[in-house]
């Protein structure tokens, strides 16, 4: 407990910043900007403390903090990090600081509100990565949409309303499906013998569900995550959102938000539904491969820089998904590393595109050309980031991609071959773009007057590039952080779970959370062995408890009819009780 609430500090520090911002006069824009940046840097520094205190060889959750929240429903404030989420937390705090610094000049209207949105967004994203309670996770997951909605909708481009609505509704639709899945899990977990009505993710890992149930629940979660990733064919919100979002919005969107989808797969879909995961591996691998190739091909012909990068994200995230669904240690570790890589390199790409956009107010590739002569420093940065995105060895992209491919190759050669051909395409579309923007002669007069990067812009880019090179040359610290957690995750996926007791009525084990709030009623009813509970319902006693429980049984039985004949009895009993 010596590390008490360090995670919470990281998560809610931005909120404190919001509180401070509210006290600043909105006309003092410079102060607002500096304050926000200071808060984000502080958050990053505190998150580094997480890394310092993190024990590499412990696979489970660390810095765990648990407090009752909505006790009656078994909802907790339950947070913690493991190797997988730690990296993403660091990425989030890092990129948010970068993004805020990058918007010093880009944002000229509603500065205070903008900064508040950025900080709220940071809290939301961090919450997603550390939440270990399903309801808490869901709250952060959906809550994070709101500041993003405003970021695109208020500070975006000409079609921002269309884009932001599409983004919001699309992700929301997926999220709602996930909510259904969460509630179903709640009742399935609580309804099993000795089960507990809780949203505690770690306790749900022990759930042993029949395959059919797993399949449906997996789909409910996977659709939400796949939209967020986005996997083909759920990707079309991404180009629109990216094109319309302000630079910092794009950076966060590409850098962190998309990772929430892949993270969701790792944290929820895979370990909760191991058999369904294996059942769906071919489907998702193929979707990932289609995404890789499709994203690359479509990216190639985009006339708009941001759209090009957006489609390239589809391709890169395809690699991540392929690695994850390889279900080998190299694949998953590569996938996680590639999440970080993509956050860095695509984030940097968006930063660079934003910088050039600020100068020229266009993102069309054809409006550029010959920039290398005019702004050499910018070109150098752009080149390095482009190469990182291509996956050039020695830079970060390669390590992730190669691990993914190696991991995939072990399980399916065809997947690896197809995915590797995506590496060729990446070179094609990125270099073609680079050539059209940077090489050749200056054809537009406006380009001749471009100014090179300012000191602030260099300061924005250099940290990102440092990481890009660092991961490329010495990825060991990053891989080592994830190794233990990934091993545990894979063990979860590969071993079929057996419940501690056989299914059916055995004496219940009293649990702690049954003692609080309106919990006891629910809990008591749930502790009755199934058959007896049905009979009791018929006599019409304990109607309140039964009503709540029977709703759960319905949800459960709808999902698990074939495998659980006894649930139909429950249903009949419940109806008589009404």
């Amino acid at each position, binding site marked *: 407990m010596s590390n008490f609430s360090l995670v919470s500090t990281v998560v809610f520090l931005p909120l404190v910043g919001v509180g401070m911002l509210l006290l600043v006069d909105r006309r003092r824009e410079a102060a607002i900007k500096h304050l926000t940046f200071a808060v984000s840097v502080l958050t990053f520094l505190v998150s580094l403390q997480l890394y310092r205190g993190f024990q590499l060889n412990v696979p489970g959750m660390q810095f765990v903090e648990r407090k009752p929240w909505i006790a009656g429903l078994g909802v907790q404030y339950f947070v913690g990090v493991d190797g997988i989420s730690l990296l993403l937390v660091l990425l989030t705090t890092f990129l948010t600081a970068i993004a805020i610094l990058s918007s010093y000049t880009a944002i000229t209207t509603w500065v205070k509100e903008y900064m508040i949105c950025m900080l709220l967004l940071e809290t939301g994203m961090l919450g997603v990565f550390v939440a270990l309670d399903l309801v808490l996770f869901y709250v952060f997951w959906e809550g994070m949409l709101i500041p993003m909605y405003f970021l695109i909708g208020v500070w975006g481009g000409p079609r921002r309303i269309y884009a932001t609505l*599409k983004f919001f*509704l*699309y992700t929301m639709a997926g999220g709602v499906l996930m909510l259904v899945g969460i509630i179903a899990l709640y009742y399935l977990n609580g309804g099993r013998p000795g089960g507990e009505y809780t949203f505690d993710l770690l306790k749900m890992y022990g759930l042993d569900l029949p395959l059919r149930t797993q399949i449906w629940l997996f789909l409910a979660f996977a659709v939400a995550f796949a939209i967020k990733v986005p996997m083909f*064919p759920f*990707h*079309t*919100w991404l180009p629109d959102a990216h094109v319309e979002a302000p630079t910092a919005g794009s950076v966060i969107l590409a850098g962190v938000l998309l990772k929430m989808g892949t993270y969701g797969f790792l944290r929820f879909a895979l370990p909760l539904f191991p058999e369904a995961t294996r059942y769906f591996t071919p489907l998702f691998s193929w979707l990932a491969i289609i995404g890789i190739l*499709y994203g690359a*091909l*479509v990216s*190639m*012909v*985009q006339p708009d820089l941001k759209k090009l990068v957006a489609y390239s994200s589809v391709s890169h995230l395809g690699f991540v998904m392929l690695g994850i669904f390889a279900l*080998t*240690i*190299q694949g998953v*570790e*590569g996938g996680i590393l590639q999440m970080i890589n993509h956050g860095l390199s695509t984030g940097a790409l968006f930063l660079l595109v934003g910088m050039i956009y600020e100068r020229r107010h266009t993102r069309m590739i054809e409006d550029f050309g*010959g920039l*290398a*002569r005019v702004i050499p420093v910018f070109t150098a940065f752009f080149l390095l980031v482009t*190469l990182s995105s291509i996956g*050039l*060895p*020695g830079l970060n992209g*390669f*390590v992730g991609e*190669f*691990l993914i*491919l*190696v*991991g995939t*190759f*072990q399980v399916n*050669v065809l997947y*690896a*071959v197809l995915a*590797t*051909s995506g*590496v*060729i395409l990446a*070179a*094609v579309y990125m*270099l*073609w773009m680079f*050539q059209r923007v*940077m*090489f*050749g*002669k200056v054809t537009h007069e406006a380009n001749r007057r471009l100014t090179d990067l300012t000191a602030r812009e260099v300061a924005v880019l250099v940290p990102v590039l440092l990481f890009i090179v660092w991961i490329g*040359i*010495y*990825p*060991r610290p990053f*891989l*080592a952080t994830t*190794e233990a957690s990934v*091993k545990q995750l894979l063990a979860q996926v590969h071993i079929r779970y057996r419940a501690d007791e056989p299914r059916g009525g055995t004496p219940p084990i009293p649990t702690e959370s049954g003692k609080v709030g309106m919990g006891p009623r629910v809990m008591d009813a749930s502790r009755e062995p199934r058959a007896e509970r049905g009979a009791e319902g018929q006599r019409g006693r304990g109607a309140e408890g039964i009503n709540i429980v029977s709703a759960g049984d319905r949800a459960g039985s709808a999902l698990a009819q074939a495998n659980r004949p006894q649930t139909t009895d429950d249903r009949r009993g419940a109806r008589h009780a009404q």
Partner: protein
Amino acid sequence: MLNSLWLIPVWPLLGFLVNGFFGRRIGKTAVGTIACGSVGLSLLASLGALGKLLARPAEARRVEQVLAPWIGAGNFQADWGLLLDPLSAVMILVVSGVGFLIHVYSIGYMREDPDYPRFFTYLNLFTFSMLMLVLANNYLLLYVFWEAVGLCSYLLIGFWFEKKSAADAGKKAFIVNRVGDFGFALGVMLLWTSLGTLRYDQVFAAAPAQLVAGGGVVTAITLLLFLGATGKSAQIPLYVWLPDAMEGPTPVSALIHAATMVTAGVYMVARSAPLFTLAPLSLSVVAWIGGLTAVFAATIALVQTDIKRIVAYSTISQLGYMFLGCGVGAYAAAIFHLMTHAFFKALLFLGSGSVIHGLSGEQDIRKMGGLRKHMPITAWTFLIAALANAGIFPLAGFWSKDEILYGAAAGGYGAVWALGAGGAFLTAFYMLRCYYLTFEGRSRVEPEAAHHLHESPPVMTVPLVILAVFAALVGFVGVPPEHGAYHRFVEPVFAGAKQVAGHAASVGEVPMAILSLVIALVGVWLATRFYVWRPEIPARMVERYPAAYRTLLHKYYVDELYDALIVEPIRRGSLWLWRRFDEPVIDGSVNGIGALIRIGSLALRRVQTGYVMSYVLSFIVGVVAILGYLAFWR
């Protein structure tokens, strides 16, 4: 020296960093000095390492050092590790030696260029990457620097990026190389999946035991690796980028596209000799591809008019010989040829660079002629290099080429030998054609260029002379053939590979050498006849065989074929995917759902008349219905 192998590649890296960050501030002299000095230090370090290596007994000439762990994920491990053995020793000497001379030469060649610091930055980065490539102790590290040299090649080909053709050529080089790397990467993955390691020593130790000789796995591995080699070393079918790469500055062509980078493929195949030995099928593929490329590129070179392109096709052709050597099991001969080729081909490029420099940028040999009078050093060195390339006794090329051809014949690859011999004839012909058209005969130089015509400054001619000396004499380290100093040094590396490959045919060594010399001399004689004694013959030949001439002039239309079969379909297909599939179908269905809900809502909203009375009425209907249910059905 052997305890700190990192001293060899580290200097160019430092040079790269210094020139990259401060190059614009410290002035041209300092940039040039740093760049050349760093490579010079590498050369000294390499020589020192060679000396130490030679001092050891033959079986102990192998130093391996792991600098730092690199990638570790589960049981996948790869390190930053260096390996020095005779093979890599030869390579680092070639790289740092030829590289040093070319760096020096570049000081003069690039003097007028405004991007002078950038040039040397790239050049140093390349030298570092190339040294690391040959020093790597595992396949993954090899792959890393394999791509890194590709990057440098991209940057240097597109050095004059304002020229669209240069930028295009750079991109083409990178992408075509990526196609090859696709195979390389897959090969590495298959290798790791099969053997669980990527370190050379472990791979070669485990391979014979764990992989079935001639089996599918090892054949697949070697063919995939070879696909990578065809990309990097410009062999059929991926050779198309190299001629275009001549858009880069001439020293680049000399360093990267003649002496060092393009030979990385040969090095890789030679390095993987223990694997290739297990896959006879792959070996014959290598031999055949090499032989075919040698002849194919040579035929194209016959009719080209751009001096650098002639040399470029010659490079492709010579690389073909090296692969031919590898394919027939004569690895040492292939590396020998690699070494001699590095000298004389770099010399050819630098010589043509000197010519181009003197003619203010003219590259068309139809607009040259008679230049020997104006630039004698260039002319004589060029002639030496051309004859060496043609394989004329006793110049370097003769020894190494002859050894490869002998290897083919001795290995029983008669058809492949025939290809090589044919290629040798063609080589002699086009090299001399190039020399005659450029330096001899009547001057066809445009008046304007003639005005400035001059011999290059010493900073350029001195490297030419040094290279010429080497091009003439370096072959003698391999004398007598198969048993020279070179062979005693390098052969042990391929000891394991040799035994399996050698099912010798009985052919005499000396007769074979004389035969190949005669073939080359016939080529020389024919070229002299065509371009010195009877200059009207070539035009007559063109008239008589117009179709053949056009085909050769257009390089068998391969570029056009690739464009039509690969580039265009992908581009059009992508456009189609975006315009006709992504936007209307996928996004359309997303927006379609939205539109559907909208339409439905539009229809539904007509129910909302806004009149209280109709709401009341519907409300009552509802009450009646519910009551009816409660009254009658419950």
